[in-house]
């Protein structure tokens, strides 16, 4: 036998496929991965410390910068947490607008996940198609919130402004096109034999392991566990909508990928229902200029973000600024499972696994 040696390969922090500043140290035996060590913190901004120096309203735009690909979801989570803390009732119309914006964000985030997986696996054209479709959502964000990527549109107590007239036709045509988009992604990538071979059986995440490691979101559902906070613990008005949870069977990369594509379709269904049921009325509750929750009050509010369970733990000391704010970032906790699913695979599987776990480093590093 030839003597072999173990060597390390540093994937990142500057690498085409790490979706931001992620540093993965791969300990390799030839092409086989022995272990993977994840190093984080390259985009750490100490958001939790910043929050302690800002008023409740001032922190809203910061939350958009956590998961910048699904910009409305972290904002929604934070605003709902503060509303829970203060007992603010949000007007009906605002709730519906919020649901539409949140689901649009989820679609946008999944489209990034899909197209980024495409480029990571070498299907450059897949990236372009995903980005092309996402552009329409960005246009909708621009017309409602004024910004394409980080529109701080959802506010404590409602939304910043009523939807413009072009909004409903634009969303309707987008929702109509969703089946075509899904068909295209599936046709170009999922059905492709090379694609399937690269993903099938790669990075298998058993359901028990997933729960132990606190994995949530599409990654957990791909392992076959029907756990979605929109159904398990409906926040806002999610209990009014009828939608399915796409589930995986094997818990491998292909399942994670497929679940994301199918979730786009389900989000489309929710938006359709919300558009139909949206009432007229106020878009923002009467919120005092200075928000001062009772001292000692605390809240843990969690929503189903595009990446998983996004939780905000806020402790108030009676002042206008939070005493302590903690973000339970789904990407941070989902990434923990990367070494588990990478072990024993070949080098290229690291790329596949990072892509299908879909971490967003702005959120995981905070």
């Amino acid at each position: 036998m030839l003597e072999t040696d173990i060597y390390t390969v540093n994937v990142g922090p500057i690498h085409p496929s790490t979706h931001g500043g992620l540093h993965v140290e791969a300990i390799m035996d030839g092409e086989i991965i022995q272990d993977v060590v994840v190093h984080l913190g390259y985009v750490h901004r100490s958001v939790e410390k910043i929050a302690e120096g800002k008023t409740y309203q001032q922190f809203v735009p910061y939350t958009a910068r956590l998961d910048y690909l699904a910009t409305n979801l972290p904002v929604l989570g934070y605003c709902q947490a503060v509303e829970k803390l203060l007992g603010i009732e949000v007007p009906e119309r605002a709730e519906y607008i919020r649901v539409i914006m949140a689901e649009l964000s989820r679609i946008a985030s999944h489209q990034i996940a899909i197209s980024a997986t495409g480029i990571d696996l070498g299907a450059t054209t897949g990236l372009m198609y995903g980005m092309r479709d996402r552009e329409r959502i960005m246009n909708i964000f621009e017309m409602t919130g004024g910004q394409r990527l980080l529109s701080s549109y959802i506010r404590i107590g409602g939304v910043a402004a009523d939807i413009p007239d072009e909004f409903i036709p634009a969303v309707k045509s987008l929702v109509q096109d969703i089946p075509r988009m899904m068909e295209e992604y599936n046709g170009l990538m999922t059905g492709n034999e090379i694609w399937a071979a690269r993903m099938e059986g790669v990075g298998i995440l058993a359901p028990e392991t997933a729960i132990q490691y606190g994995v949530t979101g599409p990654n957990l559902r791909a392992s076959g566990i029907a756990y979605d906070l929109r159904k398990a613990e409906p926040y806002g008005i999610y209990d009014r909508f009828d939608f399915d949870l796409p589930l995986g069977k094997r818990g491998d990369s292909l399942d994670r990928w497929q679940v994301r594509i199918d979730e786009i379709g389900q989000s489309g269904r929710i938006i359709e229902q919300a558009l139909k049921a949206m009432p007229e009325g106020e878009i923002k509750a009467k919120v005092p200029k200075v928000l001062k929750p009772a001292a000692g009050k605390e809240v843990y509010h969690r929503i189903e973000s595009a990446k998983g369970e996004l939780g905000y733990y806020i402790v108030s000391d009676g002042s206008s600024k939070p005493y302590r704010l903690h973000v339970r970032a789904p990407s941070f906790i989902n990434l923990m499972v990367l070494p588990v699913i990478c072990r024993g695979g070949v080098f290229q599987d690291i790329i596949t696994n990072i892509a299908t776990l879909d971490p967003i480093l702005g959120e995981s590093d905070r």
Partner: protein
Amino acid sequence: MQEFSLERMIQELEGLLGDKVRTGSDQFFTVLYIDPAALTILMGKLRDEYGFNHLANLTSVDYGEEFEMVYHLYSIPDNNKVLVKTRVPRTLAELDSLISLWPTADWQEREVYDLMGIKFKGHPNLVRVLLPEDFEGHPLRKDYLMGGRK
């Protein structure tokens, strides 16, 4: 396994742990205040006997003299929830690690160590996770002052 009931669980836990556990509740959660020495026993019971298999959130709050550790536990798929709190003194900020019960505590405890400076006994790899290794201080402590912009 019996049907889950919060009251019965509290009774049983109080019977088991005596005055080490104190219960309370706020608007959203049933809170179990636990003596840090009995933390692992309580958590083990919660996980194995009452089905709280999902450690959703693990964090800490600085209350001056003491640090409070906060654990939000959920069960999948029943979705029962309980909040566990424990306090450690600032001078001796040390606590048992929960990594053997929930592997998800790994990075979350590292984050608490990193940002708040609470040490976890039994954690195999307690190093900073978000800040660089040579960083001094723990920024989420209240006595850590932020440097402003010039």
